[in-house]
């Protein structure tokens, strides 16, 4: 993109805000967000990320899902962490999601709409940007 003007920046923000709000990227309605700070990566987040992508392909749901990375969620004691946001399900943060649980996550949460035992952790704080 060429250098922006003030108006272009504002227009971009309005557009992206809406997008981020819907968490919809090109018709995909499911977001899988992997915490990829140093702590997450050290605990195997990269492997988890790859395993999730592979599992999505395997279960034919990849077209609905955006797999994204983000920074440290603060739950360093249960890394790797993965947040799943999708319609008809409450947003959930899963901890201790090493790669061997990736398929279980995809099958149970995304396909069967049920939660995973022993992996759910709470969001550490309220979001100030939305207020």
């Amino acid at each position: 993109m060429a250098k922006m003007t003030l108006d272009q920046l504002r227009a971009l923000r309005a557009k992206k805000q809406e997008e981020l709000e819907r968490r919809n990227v090109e018709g995909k309605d499911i977001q899988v967000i992997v915490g990829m700070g140093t702590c997450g990566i050290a605990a195997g987040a990269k492997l988890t990320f790859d395993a999730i992508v592979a599992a999505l392909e395997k279960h034919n749901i990849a077209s609905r899902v955006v797999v994204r990375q983000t920074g440290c969620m603060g739950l360093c004691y249960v890394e790797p962490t993965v947040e799943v946001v999708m319609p008809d399900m409450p947003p959930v943060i899963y901890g201790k999601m090493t790669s061997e649980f990736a398929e279980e996550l995809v099958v149970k949460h995304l396909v069967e709409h049920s939660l995973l035992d022993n992996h759910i952790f709470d969001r550490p704080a309220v979001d100030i940007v939305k207020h």
Partner: protein
Amino acid sequence: MAYKNFILVCGGTGCESSRSDEIYKNLIKEAEALGVSRDVQVVKTGCFGFCEKGPIVKVLPSESFYVEVKPEDAREIIAEQVIKGREVTRLLYRKDKKAETTKLQDIEFYQKQFRIVLRNCGVINPESIDEYIARTGYHALEKALFEMTPEEIIAEMKASGLRGRGGAGFPTGMKWEAARKSPGEVKYIVCNADEGDPGAYMDRSTIEGDPHSILEAMVIAGRAVGANFGYIYIRAEYPLAIERLKIAIAQAKDYGLLGENILNSGFNFDIEIRLGAGAFVCGEETALLQSIEGKRGMPRPKPPFPAVKGLWGKPTVINNVETLANVPIVLTRGAQWFSSIGTEKSKGTKVFALTGKINNSGLIEVPMGTTLREIIFDIGGGIRNNKKFKGVQTGGPSGGIIVEKDLDTPISYESLTALGSMMGSGGMIVMDEDDCVVDVSKFYMAFCVDESCGKCAPCRIGTKQMHGLLDKITKGQGEEEDLVKLEQIGKAMTKASLCMLGGSAANPTLSTIRHFRDEYLEHIRDRKCRAGKCKDLVVYEIDPTKCIGCGLCARKCPVPCITGEKKKPHVIDGSKCIKCGECFAVCKFGAVIKR
């Protein structure tokens, strides 16, 4: 199959010990018995953190937060909530017995963390400038360029009460003002990302999670001060943070948010990254500037302060990562909002890296004025393995230990200094009864010996001498007058060192002597280390009444120093023993004694 309700049962250690597993099983059983197992899924989760009120059961999507639930409550939860859609009000959380029930988002525990610096951390993709922009990113820059004069920006920063998060707590607005008023055409903005305390990773995580907030803040600072160039000084051992900064800088340049004529405002600002080799002293601002200039990182006396004479002799503002991450929010939400958070003199929040013998180690952000007890026992979930709390080290090798009786002090720059510690950059290491204070002090002093740049004598010689004395005490060769010497050298170093590395290096030792004098004396007089950490003070012996002479310890001993005939009590030769503890670990009869 589509569930209408999700019941989350806490499966953390605390709740499990108060029968949450039974609650979980009962909920499943009752759902089946009442024929609604297709409508509800019961899930066992990780710790919700609010262990005090456990066992905890949370129902989604209604966000009902049930506390102190008993296994026999399961039927009512299923019958009322799942079938009739009504909350079981008697189980909802309330602050005390007479209080009204409280909604999930209003619960004090979850309000204890408050994220300003980490607002985007774990929320956006740090490699996407679009997502940062969507979350009011670069809105503060718009204000700074088009709606406010530099004087107004500085006035807003001063009104917000934001103080330096690197540890010293100097008011950010005043720093900017001093640099603005310093004469000179060329000025610089420097971001100090040389985080070096053992156990601290606040700044790394902030950059990894939200690099654009730092860039935006630096441009704003440049506009306020009248600088057109900035450096980010970051240690090479943070490769991921560096990578994400590089991506962010490229994106911001591409969008015209960095570089020449930003958003057609006529203002230019550019940023470069400078990698440090990881010397602790380079976190000290004057040493950091030397390092950027390509010289050996050594501090110089102040004044003149960098705001007057900094990088290449030009007025320079040096702000720490966390300080900068606050800046955009101060402008978008306003100084009034920001100053409503925190205590009278310490505004806003503080990020801490919670580590050590604690259940929930992690990255947390709390409003100033939160107590250490709240941080360690509420947010941190208390001490691991139900051990006893001994102390918490704040400020890393420059700070001091804070003990049980001071845990209720609300955190602020002043209160922590009054306790003989300091805010520091935010490392918080929790110690339990198995940690030896002399050993810990020796560890921090060894760190300072390694990291002392050697320019001034008090630090170069003082750290070495203090380390020698501490080493002597841990080896069981200490004398009582060593404590006097430690205090004397410590005080001299504190007063006479050139920079804060030496000026604060004695803090861990002095504060542990103050709070745990008896333990030091125990090492010296009784040659005993109660935590069993000081190897030289531990003695292994074999109880002849318990030893059956199996010979296992003798076979495992790497020296070997254990002898004895078969089926007769064995003996350890104390003069050869290296205190590895192998015999103690392998003996099946409890015959090896550790003293």
